[in-house]
């Protein structure tokens, strides 16, 4: 057993941290976050130059041939700075889906350009709010909710009912009949309602495997967990720094046990979340069945990292309530990640089943 990243992974971490410090300073992350349609295309392209969007893509499809663990460590760094952009839907979930279930033609058409940062593919896989259905003429009708970054996506992978079965289709976003409406959230994530009105589908749009959604969703859950852990780690660091430097009554507030004990709980929440995350990601990357481990990691981190964010607000006091302070964005980032790729209830139900509770 070994919790330490390999030297190559350490290099990835330090490169990512340095790059994000320079290219995605808090003011920039803030600006994109507060713009309802914000998207930093230049940053997205520079990330692609580092091979990030291609981490899960094999070299022969234009990718950088990384591993799932690389993605997890990178997501932690992106979580730390609240990096904007549709990395999880496009570079993690849609990429995993295409690799696992795309036709040879779909893979060749999409993966190299996605890895290069030239095209973005988002996903509409969540069952909640999804009424998409393929009618007997092969046309797609209905709507999907919570589709991230649909406004900048070149295509969407949608889950739709087809005569009782669930079908996965890759749909170019500009196909006639597709409309995208922003859902307006409290956080930095750009979510859309995607409506399909008699959108024509061809056989070439349908993915080869219809059961691959769950696996891709699990990889996405791991990425979101890593994002939460990174953001919570940052909240912890900021809160401890504040506790050391904020002086009231002649001494730093961190000299009081009430604040010390709160900080100690933040450490527990972050470390425990990270342990579950790494263990689950390692197991998945070894090809072992890891669904229950991933469900535990996501459910746990969602609760624990949100607790860190809320406690962080208490430690910061009034200043943390301001829009210009970074705390609320980290908090909202965790909030958004906690409900994407399965919320707590959904993952806990998976765990309940896995530990043998009869339904």
């Amino acid at each position, binding site marked *: 057993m070994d919790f*330490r990243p390999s030297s190559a992974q350490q290099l990835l971490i330090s490169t990512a941290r340095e790059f994000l410090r320079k290219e995605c300073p808090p003011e920039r992350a803030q600006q994109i976050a507060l713009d309802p349609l914000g998207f930093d295309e230049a940053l997205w392209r520079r990330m692609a130059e580092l091979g990030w969007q291609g981490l899960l893509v094999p070299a022969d499809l234009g990718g950088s041939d990384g591993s799932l663990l690389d993605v997890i460590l990178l997501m932690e760094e992106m979580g730390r700075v609240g990096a904007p952009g549709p990395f999880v839907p496009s570079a993690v979930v849609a990429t995993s889906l295409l690799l696992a279930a795309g036709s040879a033609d779909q893979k060749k058409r999409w993966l190299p350009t996605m890895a290069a940062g030239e095209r973005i593919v988002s996903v509409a896989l969540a069952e909640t709010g999804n009424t998409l259905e393929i009618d007997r003429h092969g046309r797609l009708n209905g709507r999907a909710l919570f589709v991230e970054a649909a406004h900048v996506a070149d295509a969407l992978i949608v889950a739709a009912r087809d005569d009782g079965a669930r079908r996965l289709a890759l749909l170019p976003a500009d196909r006639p009949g597709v409309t995208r409406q922003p859902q307006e959230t409290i956080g930095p994530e750009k979510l859309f309602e995607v409506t399909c009105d008699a959108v024509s589908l061809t056989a070439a749009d349908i993915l080869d495997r219809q059961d691959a959604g769950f696996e891709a969703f699990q990889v996405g859950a791991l990425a979101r967990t890593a994002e939460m852990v990174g953001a919570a780690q940052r909240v912890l660091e900021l809160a401890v720094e504040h506790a050391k430097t904020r002086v009231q009554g002649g001494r730093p507030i961190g000299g009081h046990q009430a*604040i010390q004990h709160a900080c100690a*709980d933040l450490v*527990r929440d972050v470390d425990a979340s990270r342990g*579950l995350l790494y263990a689950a990601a390692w197991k998945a990357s070894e090809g072992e069945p890891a669904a229950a481990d991933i469900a535990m990691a996501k459910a746990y981190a969602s*609760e624990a990292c949100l607790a860190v964010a809320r406690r962080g607000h208490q430690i910061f006091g009034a200043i943390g309530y301001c829009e210009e302070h970074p705390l609320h964005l980290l908090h909202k980032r965790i909030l958004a990640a906690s409900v994407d790729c399965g919320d707590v209830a959904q993952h806990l139900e998976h765990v309940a089943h896995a530990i043998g509770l009869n339904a």
Partner: protein
Amino acid sequence: MEFGFSPAEQAFAEEVRAFLRANPLDRFALDGMDAGYGSGAHSRAFMKALGERGWISMCWPEAFGGQTKPMFFKLVLFEELALAGAPFGPLAGSWQTADAIIDYGSERLRRDVLPAVARGEATFWQGYSEPDAGSDLLALKTEARRDGNDYVIRGHKIWSSHAGIATHGLVFTRTSREARRSRGFSMFVVPNSTPGMDIRPIRSLTGGVYHYEVFLDDVRVPEELRLGPEGEGFQALLNGLDSDRFWGRFYKAPALERVLRRLVDHANATGASRDAGVRRRMASMAAEIAALRFLFYRAACLLRDGAPITYETAVAKVYADELGQKLARLGMDLLGPWAPLRAGSREAPLGGDISHAYLTSLGHTIAGGTAEVLRTTVAVRGLGLPAEPRRA
């Protein structure tokens, strides 16, 4: 990054499981209460069985009769024993004391005590706390006065687990009044049979006896029973407490996992498993237990690699104890009106183990460093927050 177990570790785990299959636990007589930490009851018979297999001394150097197995073998043994609910109560204390004797014990301690530890015959109680020295251990009053080649110990120790049934006490004393606060302390390994010791049981709120108080009335011990140099006992104590947080709690996660499995069976049998709230609480508990396990494994890796530990064991210990309380509370909730029935009652579900766990868990956030003291340790030593002013 690597989260699996080596083939040798897996083979050892299988060896332990085979031993447990071949030796049903009800064959081992129990001599002392299970205090709920996860290591089960005190059983000399079980300790001797572990000794016969060479498992108590397996990680010691060969010069001391060991097999220099890697530290992780101890973790494997702990996990398998705790998952089975085995009575290995004194094992962690035996390991810690033996390690201290190997590191800085006298020839006499090495010769007389180590072989008995290896056989599972010698077990230890900790004589640290005193009536007026709890969280503030350095306020202790027990003195060891030098008299020729002997020391004469006089004082009053309390909250010593299994002191009445163990064979030796680790008695923490003041050997000099002149030295500054953290100096002038010495630790002794005192056989229970030494004249002048009066060991009295303290009945706990469980109805059973786990703790004892020990009156030392001019207890004369030869200097070879001092553990480490005179006046350096405080460091030995800190090492002991640090190590206790890890070794005395490592088995909590597998032990809680065992309890949760039993509660899952119970919930399935009663139909409570269909309740959405129950499912959610139990699933959440499973995730927390897994998280706890990895906190301990992370600390284990740091210990193995000789990396510095500032807060890691303190975080893990507090979490272990608070999670144990939470699971006991969940268990009591599941049992409803049956919850308060005690072990031995005809109707007690799960053999009364849940009500017992509920009560014993109350002591865990106090023993071995209170949750409050340890959170302060995490904040000050781990995060570098300023310490509160201390009295001189």
